[in-house]
C-alpha cells in the first residue's frame, strides 16, 4: 500500500516537474535569450595582492596608516565608519597621543547634549568614540548626495564579492561611457549610459554608480611617509585599510589557526597510532574452529585475537 501510494506520488511530482521542464525548454528554445547588458559589460575585480592574503598574511601598518589618511581626507566627507572607534587606531601603529590628537581634531563633532541646558549640541571626539557620521541622519545624507545614500564603510570589504580587490578596482574603475568598449570590442548601448548624477563604472554590479570618482588625480593625498600617492596606490591603501576595519582580528585569527592546526595534526597522528595499535590484534583472523562451539552455547568469550590483545 505504502509502495503504491509512493509510486503514484512519485509519478505526480515527476509529471509536474517534467511539465515545467518541457514548458521551460520550449520557451528557452523558441524565445531568443539575450545576455543582459550588465552581464556583457560587467568586470570582475582585478587581481591585487595584499600583505594579508594567505594563511600567514599580516596587515602592513604603514599601508593601513596611509589608507586611513585617504579615508580621512577623501572618503570621510560622505562615508561613515560607525563600527570603528578612534581608540582602535592604536592597533595599526598610532601611539596614544596621536590617537587623542586625531580624535580631537576630527572634522566632524560627536552629537551630544549641553550639560547645563540639555539641549542638543556637539562636542569634540575622544578616543572612546566611534567615528562620527558625516550626516546627522539618512535623509540629510540623501539630500546631500543626489538622493543616493553613501553606505557605511566599516564592513565594506566583507560585504561585497571580491572584498578589498573589488574596492580598489571600483575606485580606479571609472571609464568614459562614450568611448568604453568591453573585451569583445562592443560599445556601451546608448540606453544604459549613465543618467543624471550617475557615473559609469564597469566594476559596479549595475554599471552605473552614484558616487562620483573619489580618487581623481595622482597626488590627491600627500602621504606622511613620503610614498608617491598615485591613484592605484591610494586605491590599494584605502582598500587595505577597509580590510582592516572589516576584519580587525585577522592577524590574531591567522596566528591562532596555525597553533590550533599544529596541535590538531600532532593529536591526530597520535590518535591514528593509538587506533592502529588497539586494532592490531583485531584485524588478524581469529583462531578458528576450536572456540566456535563455545560461544554458540553461550559461555566463554570468543577466542578472537582482538580480545586477547586486551
Amino acid at each position, binding site marked *: 500500500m505504502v*509502495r503504491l501510494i*509512493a*509510486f503514484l506520488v512519485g509519478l505526480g511530482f515527476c509529471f509536474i*516537474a517534467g511539465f515545467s521542464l518541457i514548458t521551460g525548454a520550449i520557451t528557452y528554445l523558441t524565445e531568443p535569450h539575450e545576455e543582459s547588458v550588465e552581464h556583457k559589460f560587467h568586470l570582475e575585480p582585478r587581481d591585487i595582492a595584499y600583505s594579508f592574503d594567505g594563511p600567514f598574511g599580516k596587515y602592513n601598518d604603514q599601508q593601513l596608516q596611509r589608507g586611513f589618511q585617504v579615508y580621512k581626507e577623501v572618503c570621510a566627507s560622505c562615508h561613515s565608519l560607525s563600527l570603528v572607534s578612534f581608540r582602535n587606531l592604536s592597533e595599526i601603529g598610532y601611539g596614544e597621543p596621536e590617537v587623542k590628537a586625531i580624535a580631537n581634531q576630527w572634522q566632524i563633532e560627536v552629537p551630544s547634549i549641553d550639560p547645563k541646558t540639555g539641549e542638543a549640541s556637539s562636542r569634540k571626539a575622544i578616543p572612546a568614540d566611534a567615528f562620527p557620521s558625516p550626516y546627522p541622519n539618512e535623509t540629510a545624507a540623501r539630500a546631500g548626495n543626489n538622493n543616493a545614500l553613501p553606505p557605511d564603510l566599516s*564592513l565594506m570589504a566583507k560585504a561585497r564579492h571580491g572584498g578589498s580587490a573589488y574596492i580598489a578596482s571600483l575606485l580606479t574603475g571609472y571609464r568614459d561611457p562614450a568611448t568604453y568598449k568591453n573585451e569583445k570590442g562592443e560599445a556601451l548601448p546608448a540606453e544604459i549610459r549613465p543618467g543624471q548624477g550617475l557615473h559609469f563604472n564597469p566594476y559596479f554590479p549595475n554599471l552605473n554608480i552614484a558616487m562620483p570618482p573619489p580618487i581623481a588625480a595622482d597626488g590627491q593625498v600627500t602621504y606622511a611617509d613620503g610614498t608617491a600617492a598615485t591613484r592605484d596606490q591610494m586605491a590599494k591603501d584605502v582598500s587595505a585599510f577597509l580590510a582592516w576595519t572589516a576584519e580587525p582580528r585577522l592577524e590574531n585569527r591567522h596566528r591562532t589557526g596555525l597553533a590550533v592546526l599544529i596541535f590538531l595534526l600532532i593529536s591526530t597522528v597520535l590518535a591514528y597510532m593509538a587506533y592502529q595499535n588497539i586494532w592490531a590484534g583485531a584485524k588478524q583472523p581469529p583462531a578458528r574452529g576450536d572456540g566456535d562451539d563455545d560461544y554458540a552455547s553461550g559461555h566463554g568469550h570468543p577466542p578472537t585475537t582482538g580480545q586477547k590483545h586486551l
Partner: protein
Amino acid sequence: MSFPWAKAYQPKSGLMRWIDERLPLPRLVFNSIGGGYEVPRNLNYMWNFAVLAGFALMLQIVTGIILAMHYAPAGTLAFQSVEHIMRNVNQGWLLRYAHANGASFFFIVTYIHIFRGLYYGSYKAPRELVWMLGVVILLLMMATAFMGYVLPWGQMSFWGAKVITGLFGAIPLVGEPIQTWLLGGFAPDNAALNRFFSLHYLLPFVIAGVVILHIWALHIPGSNNPTGVDIKSPRDTLPFHPYYTAKDGFGLGVFLIIYAAVTFYAPNYLGHADNYIPANALSTPAHIVPEWYFWPFYAILRAFTVDFILPAKLWGVLAMFAAILLLFFLPWIDRSPVRSGNYRPTFQKFFWILVADVLVLGWVGGLPAEEPYVMISQLATMYYFAHFLIILPILSATERTLPLPSSIADSVLHGQQAESQPYGTTPRPAAAE
C-alpha cells in the same frame, strides 16, 4: 538490549560500587558507549560520522551559549551586537566563526551520515525507528539552522526569513494569516527576531533529546554494518571501547583539522557577502539564497514553474516538504530484504546517481533562477522523486542480489583486505566452509 556475550559492568572501586548501587550512571555509560556495548567488527570509516555529528551538536551548543551572552535580539541592536562580538569580545571572532562554520560542518557530517544509511540500508527493519528519529533530527536541525541564520540580521537573514516564511503563504486561504502569525507581523521584525532567538536556543536541546532516543533505539538491535548481515555470534563483534573510541578519536582529529582550516582561514567562504549589510526592508538583494545546506531543497522548491491545477509556488512548497518527508516512509518503500548496497548491484548504480543528483541540485540551488539552470534543476528534481518513489519500489521487487556472507566474521576474515567486499567477488578461502 545487549548481546549475551557483552561484558558486564564491574565497579572498579568501593566508591564506584557505592555509586552504582544508588545511581547506576557509570553502568549506563559502560553499557552504551563503553566496553559493554558490542559493535560489529567490520564498521568502516563511514560509521565515524554519527559521533562527528554528536560532537558538532555539542560544539554548537557550547559556542552558542557563550554567543548568546553577548547577543541582543532586537532589530536595532542585533547586527551591531554581532559586530561587537567580532571586535570587542575576547576571542569573540573565534566563537562566532566557530559557530557559523560549525553549522555548516554539522550539516556536512549529517548528510554523509544519512547517505551512509541510505547505501547500507540502515533504515530497514529492525531499525525503522532509528531512521525516522534521524529524519526528525534533520528537520529540527534545518529549523534551528534557518532561525540561527536570521539572528545576525543582515540582508540575507532578513530576506531569507521573508522568503522561507513566505512558503507558508503559498498554502491556499489560510497561508497569509499563518505567515503573519509565524512572524508576529507582516514582515520579519522585532517580534520575529525575538521568537527565532528563543526557538534557536531551545531547539538544540530538543535535538539532543531526540538524539538520545535515536541512540537508544539504535542500541536495541545494535549498529548495522557494511555487509548488512545480522550479528550472529561473538566473532562478529568487538566492544565499542576501546576499538571504536580509538577509531572515532582518529576520525574526530581529521574532522577537526578540516573544520579548523576553514574556520581560521576561510571563515566567510561558506557564507554570503550580503549578510554583512544590515537588514533593510526597503532594499531587496539581487539574488536571495539560503545557506548552502539548503540549496538542494531550494532547487526543488524553484523547479516547479508551471501552474497546473494548483499554483506553481504551492507545487514547489509541496515538493520541497515531500522531498524530506518521503524519507519517513523509506523503510516501507524499499522492501528489498538485502540491506547493504554492496550486495545490490543495480541499487548501487542508482545510489550513486542519487548522490550526483543531490550534488547537482545543490549546485543549481545556489545559482540565480536562470536558464539553463532551471531546466537542470527540473531534471534533477524528477530524478530525486523517481529514485525514492518509483525506482526503489520496482527495484526491491525485481533486483537480483548477490549472495550474502554467512556472517560478519566470514565476510571480514575471508581475506584481510576484503573487508566489506561483496562475498561473491572475492575468492573464498578454504577456511570459510
